């Protein structure tokens, strides 16, 4: 059985999702639930921290595709951070860096939300 879990943390209006383990066709529904729960609560500003993610297949990549439009329609975004080179290479192969902001650290991703918020004022 593939081991995968998510945990979330709130930093002001920003939600941080931590991924851990193996994200494949079997475990992708766990991440779908995490996104669905945040969207239900009206939380559209999300940083996904990949630091402890060992593996991702296209089923996992599909989760980000499934929620991004709804989130951006609500002036939110999914920003990605802290990927290993191995995981980044898969995102890169499919052209995801054109569609998603990917940062080295969680702090950089969070700061981007904070900067864009201050521009709106």
């Amino acid at each position: 059985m593939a081991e995968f879990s998510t945990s979330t943390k709130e930093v002001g209006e920003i939600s941080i999702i931590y991924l851990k383990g193996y994200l494949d066709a079997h475990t992708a529904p766990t991440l779908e639930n995490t996104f669905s729960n945040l969207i239900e609560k009206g939380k559209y500003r999300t940083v996904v921290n990949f630091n402890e993610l060992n593996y991702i297949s296209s089923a996992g990549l599909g989760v980000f595709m499934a929620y991004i439009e709804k989130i951006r329609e609500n002036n939110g975004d999914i920003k990605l951070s802290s990927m290993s080179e191995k995981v980044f290479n898969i995102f890169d192969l499919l052209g995801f860096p054109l569609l998603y902001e990917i940062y080295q650290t969680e702090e950089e991703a969070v700061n981007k939300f904070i900067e864009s918020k201050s521009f709106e004022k």
Partner: protein
Amino acid sequence: MKNKKIHIEQKELVVKSKTDNLTEIRTFVSNGARSAGVPPNVVDNIILAVDEACTNIIKHAYKYFPEGEIHIKLEFTSNKFTIIIIDHGTPFNPESIQDPDLQKYFIQHRVGGLGMYLMKSLMDEVKYISVPGKYNQVQLSKNI
């Protein structure tokens, strides 16, 4: 060379068509490739390609019917690692799948076809054979 014998080693795994078997499939392929001396970064690519092929079989050939069988055979020689994956589900026409246009996918919320694109990108050769009513076979090869 005419008289040179090519040493071929083989290993096989048979699992039911369930996504919770993907871990066992990945471990089997990883162990087989490592013991054949495939470099670690190439092993990672092979594991992902096999995961994608088996996920496609579970979703499309067996349509999530959990009692279908997936046969995974590993064959390796000194310069080539080959994975042969056989199922008895609905035949699949690889010609019907085009390389994804990610921008278009993004707009249309489509995610299918990414797995096939990954398989083709990560492996040196991807071959499909379907014998209707008998079996479907996908053969993935990587030169090492």
